[in-house]
């Protein structure tokens, strides 16, 4: 039996009927076509599905859509502005922090959340801030550089 939930995604409110067992990741990707959020495992291990839910990062593959009822969700699609890429996204492009790009939306969301809470993170805090996000391509070096460049 589908349930109706209401939530805010990237400043837009949604009312949507969902199966009780569908995850937030699948709802975003397959019901709302917000495919910027990726899935690299579906078991909470890779961080590719990272979104911000009520101010904290979550692995959206581990959250049921119905658990997100009433929540405020930010996804990668909400980051760019009318002017284009956000400064953080620009930094990822500029520093070469993106290779295959499959981890990138999740890492950028983790980095955004980190910088929102702590505009001046140390290297260790940056490492910790993206520790839930696996990247097999970059060796993280340029990801650290991109985030470091956004310290205020």
């Amino acid at each position, binding site marked *: 039996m589908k349930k109706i939930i209401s939530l805010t995604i990237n400043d837009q409110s949604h009312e949507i009927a969902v199966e009780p067992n569908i995850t937030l990741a699948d709802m975003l990707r397959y019901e709302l076509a917000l495919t910027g959020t990726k899935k690299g495992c579906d078991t909470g291990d890779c961080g590719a599905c990272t979104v911000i839910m009520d101010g904290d990062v979550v692995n959206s593959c581990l959250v049921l859509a119905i658990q997100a009822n009433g929540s405020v969700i930010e996804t990668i699609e909400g980051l760019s502005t009318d002017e284009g890429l956000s400064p953080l996204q620009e930094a990822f*492009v*500029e520093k070469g922090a993106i290779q*295959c*790009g*499959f981890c990138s939306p999740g890492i950028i969301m983790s980095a955004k959340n980190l910088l929102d809470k702590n505009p001046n993170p140390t290297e260790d805090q940056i490492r910790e801030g993206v520790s839930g996000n696996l990247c097999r391509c970059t060796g993280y*070096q*340029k990801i650290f550089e991109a985030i470091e460049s956004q310290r205020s």
Partner: protein
Amino acid sequence: MKEFDIISTRAHRIDTPDKATGQAVFTDDITRPGMLYGALLQSPHAHARILSIDTSKAKALAGVKSVITHEQAGHIKYGVSPARYDETVFAIDKVRYIGDEIAAVAAVTLEIALAAVELIEVEYEILPAVFTLEEALKEGAPQLHETSPGNLCAEVHQEFGDVAAALKECDIIKTSTMKNKRQDGAFIEMQGCIAEFDNRGVLTLVSSTQVPHYVQRTVAMVLGMDVGMVRVKKPYVGAGFGIKAAANPMELACCILARETRKPVKMNFTRKQVFMYARARHQFSHTITTGAKKDGTLMAIKHECWLDGGAYTSFGIATVYYTGSLLGGPYKIANMSYDGYRVYNNKPTCGAQRGHGAVIARALFEQQVDMIAEEIGMDPMELRIKNMMDTGDTTCNDLNMSSFGMSECIEAVRKGSDWDKKKGNMPTGKGIGMACGFFVSGAGYPIYRSDTYHGTVIVKLTEDGGTALVYTASAEIGQGSDTAFAMIAAEALGIPLDHVRLASGDTDMGVDLGAYSSRQTLMTGHATKDAADHAKAQVLEVLAEQLSVPLKELDIKNGFITFAGDTPDFSALRTRYIKEHRGWIDNPDSEHLTFKEASRIAFLEKGSIVGTGKYKPHNLGGKFKGAAVGTSPAYGCSAQVAEVTVDMETGQVTIDSITDAHDCGKAINLTSVEGQMEGSVSMGIGEAMHEEVIFNDKGQVLNADLAEYKIVTSMDMPRIKAIVVESDEPNGPYGAKEVGEGAIMPTIPAILNAVYNAAGVRINELPLTPERVYFAIQDYKDRMAK
């Protein structure tokens, strides 16, 4: 060296803005109208005879559209090397590993497809299974393939020079062994695909692959179709590292389901299935003897290796050859023998992974080089430089180093790491070590025997003259190849990078063998330059005629036409261009004639301006059996220094830093080159420190997830100093060669040499778990005490 405008810069990649915003489309992001979902039935047994398959209950489930087994899929064999095709889409009479594919279902939802898979009834007769080299090689062991008695998939025996005689002349001889563990590719995007037939019978397969071309050929062959009726497209791909470099059974099953249902069908591997399918780095067991004179001259290598191959051949033939051939350099060694064996067993199949075949051989050999240096009291860098090949040298097994900045790389890491100050002056528990390595810039020959071009490219100018479109069937899988080719096209045409658009990864665009063996920059790069030169020549021809200027006096630079002599009056051309351009407000008023004006005029004269380019390597390598594997038009090379801390009480190894220098020829994009270096090092660290696919005694992967299979995270990645060393490769486009795989070669031995420096122990088995290092330290202490 020539000055460049576009290449050798840090231009922003053309694909990353879309990847940063989530707009970039990967396979699973695509939905097709009426799409069905497919699921696979895979064997729960490592070795069993199939007595019967009953699909009736599955077929009867509401929402199921098709259930296929070998009866629908047919019995055509496929694999990687045509001489060794040993797989069928679905098992026919027997399954050989846990995960072997038996059937597939297409249904209106994934849930229904999965439920239907559960309803397929298979009767098995369980057979005894073998999981290790020893078990597989035992007298009377269960046999996997009738055609390979003794479970021996392949053996290679080679000798160059006279190893026995050379060893007799040696003052120092070192023999040691080394064993790694099966690695997993652990790319973040799992394999996925969507297959669809149109109403004229054309099949389009969208897939997360590194090699659209090989997938196209395999799909056409297995489905009995013309190659021209099969189109394989690769959207953005979440990396592959070699594992996605061949057609997989899911792609084939998906195409067959689409044929049976006449509907688009989507299929995805789960992460567990990625591990079950495997095709990643083999487990290698090496024994190497290296001999040297007391002045440090390296004389001979005697090398034996046993490869734990798994159930099928896959890339294994190439792997077992690469394992031997890539020890031929980077040192001058006149005598080398190699005996390699690849053995089947009832585990998932191993294949190619970054540094194909050569990583563990290098890890062992580079330690022996250090042992020899230690014994004669020579600095390991000095010993390496003393034996280093020179540019233009050829190895004993016929690999030609047409450019070779290896000694420069050593110098770069010596300085970059402060080696001279640190080496020999570190306290117990702290160590520094180094190693070298090299790798091909593309395989000299395609995987199937053919005289085909390895890459073809089309560069088309838009009719308004403003933009160049580059079409290539090559595969951007994260390494930055799209950007590299756009940069090469811009450089060759003489126009800004912004004026180049590029589309890739589609077999309709031409032939390109794809992303493997670090081939694209050199090979597709050549074809791109060729095509851009061709397009440019067509524009300049028209211009020469219209302006009555000798062709050779014309060129294009930064988007403007340049004249070697006096600038002629081009006002008539400009007026014509402006007339053509009515309604636009950006009419040219520059002092120089623009490329835009010139190519618009050229279009008006000629119609289409299409430049075509192609590339295949010249004939490479010797005449001996297996000479093709390891040949390449060019070799990239690198040196690395690792600094480590070893906790002498617990055996815990921490990597403090890595300094890495790589000679990539001319760097097309400096940032991308560094990215490949840093990524290679991280994969090497993972393999050295903690990556290991673990099996239970039934042949089942126990850590088939990214929590228990541990790749390097942001917490354990040391800072890397990446130093790009440029040389001018005569066989490369603008002098460029590889970086994608060579950079992993020295990582493991540099770490192992540093561990030895820190703790006095040589570890001959990976990964460097604290237990393993702890026991080695205890053993060392005991020996010291005696």
